[in-house]
Protein backbone atom coordinates (compact mmCIF):
# COMPACT_ATOMS: atom_id res chain seq x y z
CA UNK A 1 0.00 0.00 0.00
CA UNK A 2 2.35 2.72 1.25
CA UNK A 3 5.79 1.46 0.34
CA UNK A 4 8.93 2.76 -1.26
CA UNK A 5 11.27 5.60 -0.58
CA UNK A 6 8.63 8.30 -0.18
CA UNK A 7 5.96 6.26 1.59
CA UNK A 8 5.96 8.63 4.57
CA UNK A 9 4.96 11.59 2.41
CA UNK A 10 2.10 9.70 0.77
CA UNK A 11 0.86 8.28 4.07
CA UNK A 12 0.97 11.74 5.74
CA UNK A 13 -1.17 13.25 2.99
CA UNK A 14 -3.84 10.58 3.20
CA UNK A 15 -3.80 10.67 7.02
CA UNK A 16 -4.21 14.47 7.16
CA UNK A 17 -7.05 14.39 4.63
CA UNK A 18 -8.81 11.59 6.56
CA UNK A 19 -8.47 13.38 9.92
CA UNK A 20 -9.70 16.75 8.62
CA UNK A 21 -12.64 15.22 6.73
CA UNK A 22 -13.70 13.17 9.76
CA UNK A 23 -13.43 16.18 12.11
CA UNK A 24 -15.42 18.35 9.67
CA UNK A 25 -18.13 15.71 9.23
CA UNK A 26 -18.46 15.07 12.99
CA UNK A 27 -18.60 18.82 13.70
CA UNK A 28 -21.41 19.37 11.18
CA UNK A 29 -23.40 16.33 12.31
CA UNK A 30 -23.09 17.26 16.01
CA UNK A 31 -24.09 20.87 15.26
CA UNK A 32 -27.22 19.71 13.43
CA UNK A 33 -28.17 17.39 16.30
CA UNK A 34 -27.62 20.18 18.88
CA UNK A 35 -29.85 22.59 16.98
CA UNK A 36 -32.55 19.95 16.51
CA UNK A 37 -32.45 19.20 20.25
CA UNK A 38 -32.83 22.91 21.11
CA UNK A 39 -35.76 23.24 18.72
CA UNK A 40 -37.41 20.14 20.19
CA UNK A 41 -37.06 21.65 23.67
CA UNK A 42 -38.80 24.83 22.50
CA UNK A 43 -41.63 22.76 20.98
CA UNK A 44 -42.01 20.81 24.22
CA UNK A 45 -42.05 24.05 26.26
CA UNK A 46 -44.73 25.53 23.98
CA UNK A 47 -46.83 22.37 24.31
CA UNK A 48 -46.50 22.43 28.13
CA UNK A 49 -47.59 26.10 28.24
CA UNK A 50 -50.57 25.39 25.98
CA UNK A 51 -51.64 22.45 28.16
CA UNK A 52 -51.12 24.53 31.31
CA UNK A 53 -53.33 27.26 29.83
CA UNK A 54 -56.09 24.73 28.98
CA UNK A 55 -56.05 23.25 32.50
CA UNK A 56 -56.25 26.72 34.08
CA UNK A 57 -59.27 27.66 31.96
Amino acid at each position, binding site marked *: MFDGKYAG*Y*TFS*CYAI*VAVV*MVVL*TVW*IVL*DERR*QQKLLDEFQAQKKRKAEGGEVAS
Partner: protein
Amino acid sequence: MPWLTALTVALLSLGLYFSMTVPDDYQQMGTVKIMFVHVPMSILAMGAYAMIAISSIGSLVWRHPLADVSAKVMVPIGMAFCFLALVTGSIWGRPMWGTYWVWDARLTSMLILLFLYMGLFAIWQAFEEPSRAGRAAAILALVGSINLPIIKYSVIWWNTLHQTASVLDAAKITKPALDKAYLPAFFTMLIAFSLLLVLLHMKAMRAEILRRRVQARRMRQVEQAGSSATAHMVTN
Protein backbone atom coordinates in the same frame (compact mmCIF):
# COMPACT_ATOMS: atom_id res chain seq x y z
CA MET B 1 -29.71 11.68 2.07
CA PRO B 2 -29.12 8.11 3.29
CA TRP B 3 -28.62 6.97 -0.30
CA LEU B 4 -26.22 9.87 -0.94
CA THR B 5 -24.27 8.97 2.21
CA ALA B 6 -24.07 5.32 1.15
CA LEU B 7 -22.96 6.27 -2.38
CA THR B 8 -20.32 8.66 -1.03
CA VAL B 9 -18.89 6.04 1.34
CA ALA B 10 -18.91 3.40 -1.43
CA LEU B 11 -17.13 5.68 -3.92
CA LEU B 12 -14.58 6.82 -1.33
CA SER B 13 -13.80 3.19 -0.50
CA LEU B 14 -13.52 2.28 -4.17
CA GLY B 15 -11.38 5.36 -4.85
CA LEU B 16 -9.06 4.46 -1.98
CA TYR B 17 -8.72 0.91 -3.32
CA PHE B 18 -7.90 2.20 -6.81
CA SER B 19 -5.44 4.75 -5.36
CA MET B 20 -3.56 2.13 -3.42
CA THR B 21 -3.34 -0.35 -6.30
CA VAL B 22 -2.15 1.93 -9.12
CA PRO B 23 1.38 1.32 -10.37
CA ASP B 24 4.11 3.71 -9.23
CA ASP B 25 5.20 6.46 -11.58
CA TYR B 26 8.69 5.95 -13.03
CA GLN B 27 9.81 9.40 -11.80
CA GLN B 28 7.51 10.22 -8.86
CA MET B 29 7.33 6.65 -7.60
CA GLY B 30 4.68 6.22 -4.87
CA THR B 31 4.14 9.93 -4.36
CA VAL B 32 2.03 9.97 -7.53
CA LYS B 33 -0.76 8.67 -5.28
CA ILE B 34 -0.88 12.08 -3.58
CA MET B 35 -2.44 13.37 -6.81
CA PHE B 36 -5.66 11.48 -5.99
CA VAL B 37 -6.24 13.60 -2.87
CA HIS B 38 -4.42 16.82 -3.76
CA VAL B 39 -6.10 17.50 -7.12
CA PRO B 40 -9.70 16.84 -5.96
CA MET B 41 -9.10 19.06 -2.90
CA SER B 42 -7.85 21.89 -5.14
CA ILE B 43 -10.68 21.57 -7.64
CA LEU B 44 -13.32 21.45 -4.91
CA ALA B 45 -11.78 24.34 -2.94
CA MET B 46 -12.30 26.47 -6.04
CA GLY B 47 -15.71 24.91 -6.73
CA ALA B 48 -16.87 25.69 -3.18
CA TYR B 49 -15.78 29.32 -3.57
CA ALA B 50 -17.64 29.55 -6.89
CA MET B 51 -20.71 28.23 -5.07
CA ILE B 52 -20.29 30.92 -2.41
CA ALA B 53 -20.01 33.59 -5.12
CA ILE B 54 -23.18 32.34 -6.88
CA SER B 55 -25.05 32.21 -3.55
CA SER B 56 -23.84 35.75 -2.82
CA ILE B 57 -25.39 36.98 -6.08
CA GLY B 58 -28.64 35.28 -5.06
CA SER B 59 -28.44 36.96 -1.67
CA LEU B 60 -27.58 40.49 -2.90
CA VAL B 61 -29.73 40.62 -6.04
CA TRP B 62 -32.78 38.47 -5.27
CA ARG B 63 -32.45 38.47 -1.44
CA HIS B 64 -33.28 34.78 -1.40
CA PRO B 65 -33.16 33.63 2.26
CA LEU B 66 -31.53 30.29 1.45
CA ALA B 67 -28.77 31.96 -0.60
CA ASP B 68 -27.45 33.52 2.60
CA VAL B 69 -27.55 30.19 4.41
CA SER B 70 -25.83 28.39 1.53
CA ALA B 71 -22.99 30.93 1.36
CA LYS B 72 -22.43 30.95 5.12
CA VAL B 73 -22.22 27.19 5.62
CA MET B 74 -19.99 26.62 2.58
CA VAL B 75 -17.22 28.80 4.06
CA PRO B 76 -15.77 26.39 6.65
CA ILE B 77 -16.19 23.46 4.27
CA GLY B 78 -14.41 25.22 1.39
CA MET B 79 -11.75 26.47 3.80
CA ALA B 80 -11.03 22.89 4.91
CA PHE B 81 -10.68 21.75 1.29
CA CYS B 82 -8.41 24.71 0.47
CA PHE B 83 -6.23 24.04 3.53
CA LEU B 84 -5.91 20.36 2.54
CA ALA B 85 -5.02 21.29 -1.04
CA LEU B 86 -2.19 23.50 0.22
CA VAL B 87 -0.93 21.00 2.81
CA THR B 88 -1.00 17.95 0.51
CA GLY B 89 0.59 19.98 -2.29
CA SER B 90 3.28 21.19 0.08
CA ILE B 91 4.04 17.65 1.27
CA TRP B 92 4.14 16.46 -2.37
CA GLY B 93 6.49 19.33 -3.26
CA ARG B 94 9.16 18.28 -0.76
CA PRO B 95 10.27 15.06 -2.51
CA MET B 96 9.44 16.33 -6.02
CA TRP B 97 10.72 19.89 -6.03
CA GLY B 98 13.03 19.69 -3.02
CA THR B 99 10.99 22.28 -1.15
CA TYR B 100 7.72 22.53 0.78
CA TRP B 101 6.89 25.96 -0.67
CA VAL B 102 7.71 28.33 -3.52
CA TRP B 103 6.11 31.68 -4.21
CA ASP B 104 4.99 30.71 -7.69
CA ALA B 105 1.71 31.92 -9.18
CA ARG B 106 -0.37 28.79 -8.57
CA LEU B 107 0.64 28.27 -4.94
CA THR B 108 0.41 31.98 -4.10
CA SER B 109 -3.04 32.37 -5.64
CA MET B 110 -4.27 29.28 -3.74
CA LEU B 111 -2.90 30.79 -0.52
CA ILE B 112 -4.82 33.99 -1.31
CA LEU B 113 -7.93 31.83 -1.72
CA LEU B 114 -7.36 30.46 1.80
CA PHE B 115 -7.04 34.05 3.12
CA LEU B 116 -10.32 34.93 1.38
CA TYR B 117 -12.02 32.02 3.09
CA MET B 118 -10.60 33.15 6.43
CA GLY B 119 -11.87 36.65 5.77
CA LEU B 120 -15.36 35.37 4.99
CA PHE B 121 -15.32 33.23 8.13
CA ALA B 122 -14.27 36.23 10.23
CA ILE B 123 -17.05 38.41 8.78
CA TRP B 124 -19.73 35.83 9.59
CA GLN B 125 -18.44 35.60 13.18
CA ALA B 126 -18.02 39.39 13.62
CA PHE B 127 -21.61 40.51 13.02
CA GLU B 128 -24.39 39.50 15.39
CA GLU B 129 -27.12 40.13 12.84
CA PRO B 130 -27.02 37.53 10.02
CA SER B 131 -28.42 39.92 7.39
CA ARG B 132 -25.62 42.46 7.92
CA ALA B 133 -22.97 39.76 7.98
CA GLY B 134 -24.49 38.26 4.84
CA ARG B 135 -24.25 41.52 2.91
CA ALA B 136 -20.64 42.18 3.87
CA ALA B 137 -19.62 38.58 3.21
CA ALA B 138 -21.40 38.56 -0.15
CA ILE B 139 -19.49 41.64 -1.30
CA LEU B 140 -16.15 40.16 -0.24
CA ALA B 141 -17.02 36.84 -1.89
CA LEU B 142 -17.88 38.51 -5.20
CA VAL B 143 -14.79 40.72 -5.22
CA GLY B 144 -12.60 37.73 -4.31
CA SER B 145 -14.06 35.57 -7.10
CA ILE B 146 -11.62 37.25 -9.53
CA ASN B 147 -9.04 34.95 -7.89
CA LEU B 148 -10.65 31.85 -9.41
CA PRO B 149 -9.64 32.43 -13.08
CA ILE B 150 -6.26 33.67 -11.81
CA ILE B 151 -5.71 30.32 -10.04
CA LYS B 152 -6.90 28.38 -13.09
CA TYR B 153 -4.74 30.22 -15.65
CA SER B 154 -1.76 31.03 -13.40
CA VAL B 155 0.17 28.05 -14.79
CA ILE B 156 -0.37 29.38 -18.34
CA TRP B 157 0.09 33.11 -17.78
CA TRP B 158 3.27 32.83 -15.71
CA ASN B 159 6.34 30.57 -15.61
CA THR B 160 5.50 28.36 -12.68
CA LEU B 161 7.04 25.38 -10.97
CA HIS B 162 3.55 23.91 -10.69
CA GLN B 163 2.64 21.87 -13.74
CA THR B 164 -0.17 22.70 -16.18
CA ALA B 165 -3.46 20.80 -16.17
CA SER B 166 -3.19 17.15 -17.19
CA VAL B 167 -6.88 16.31 -17.59
CA LEU B 168 -9.31 19.14 -16.86
CA ASP B 169 -8.25 21.37 -19.72
CA ALA B 170 -10.05 22.03 -23.02
CA ALA B 171 -7.08 20.77 -25.05
CA LYS B 172 -6.54 17.68 -22.90
CA ILE B 173 -10.02 16.50 -21.98
CA THR B 174 -10.17 14.02 -24.91
CA LYS B 175 -6.47 13.17 -24.75
CA PRO B 176 -5.34 13.46 -21.11
CA ALA B 177 -1.68 13.90 -20.32
CA LEU B 178 -2.26 11.47 -17.43
CA ASP B 179 -1.54 7.77 -18.05
CA LYS B 180 -4.78 5.81 -18.40
CA ALA B 181 -3.73 3.58 -15.47
CA TYR B 182 -4.36 6.55 -13.18
CA LEU B 183 -7.67 7.75 -14.63
CA PRO B 184 -10.06 5.41 -12.73
CA ALA B 185 -8.51 6.33 -9.35
CA PHE B 186 -8.45 10.03 -10.22
CA PHE B 187 -12.05 10.30 -11.39
CA THR B 188 -13.42 8.04 -8.63
CA MET B 189 -11.76 10.13 -5.93
CA LEU B 190 -12.87 13.36 -7.61
CA ILE B 191 -16.51 12.23 -7.77
CA ALA B 192 -16.38 10.79 -4.22
CA PHE B 193 -15.03 14.02 -2.71
CA SER B 194 -17.53 16.06 -4.76
CA LEU B 195 -20.39 14.02 -3.31
CA LEU B 196 -18.89 14.46 0.17
CA LEU B 197 -18.84 18.22 -0.37
CA VAL B 198 -22.49 18.22 -1.46
CA LEU B 199 -23.49 16.03 1.49
CA LEU B 200 -21.67 18.18 4.04
CA HIS B 201 -23.16 21.33 2.48
CA MET B 202 -26.70 19.97 2.71
CA LYS B 203 -26.22 18.86 6.33
CA ALA B 204 -24.70 22.18 7.30
CA MET B 205 -27.53 24.10 5.61
CA ARG B 206 -30.06 22.10 7.62
CA ALA B 207 -28.18 22.86 10.84
CA GLU B 208 -28.08 26.59 10.00
CA ILE B 209 -31.81 26.70 9.20
CA LEU B 210 -32.51 25.01 12.54
CA ARG B 211 -30.19 27.48 14.31
CA ARG B 212 -32.07 30.45 12.83
CA ARG B 213 -35.41 28.96 13.90
CA VAL B 214 -34.05 28.50 17.45
CA GLN B 215 -32.83 32.11 17.48
CA ALA B 216 -36.23 33.35 16.25
CA ARG B 217 -37.98 31.42 19.01
CA ARG B 218 -35.58 32.82 21.63
CA MET B 219 -36.22 36.37 20.45
CA ARG B 220 -39.97 35.80 20.51
CA GLN B 221 -39.69 34.45 24.07
CA VAL B 222 -37.71 37.50 25.18
CA GLU B 223 -40.27 39.85 23.54
CA GLN B 224 -43.18 38.03 25.18
CA ALA B 225 -41.46 38.12 28.58
CA GLY B 226 -40.77 41.85 28.08
CA SER B 227 -44.36 42.71 27.07
CA SER B 228 -45.91 40.72 29.95
CA ALA B 229 -43.54 42.45 32.43
CA THR B 230 -44.60 45.86 31.01
CA ALA B 231 -48.29 44.91 31.23
CA HIS B 232 -47.76 43.81 34.86
CA MET B 233 -46.09 47.14 35.72
CA VAL B 234 -48.90 49.14 34.06
CA THR B 235 -51.68 47.31 35.94
CA ASN B 236 -49.83 47.81 39.23
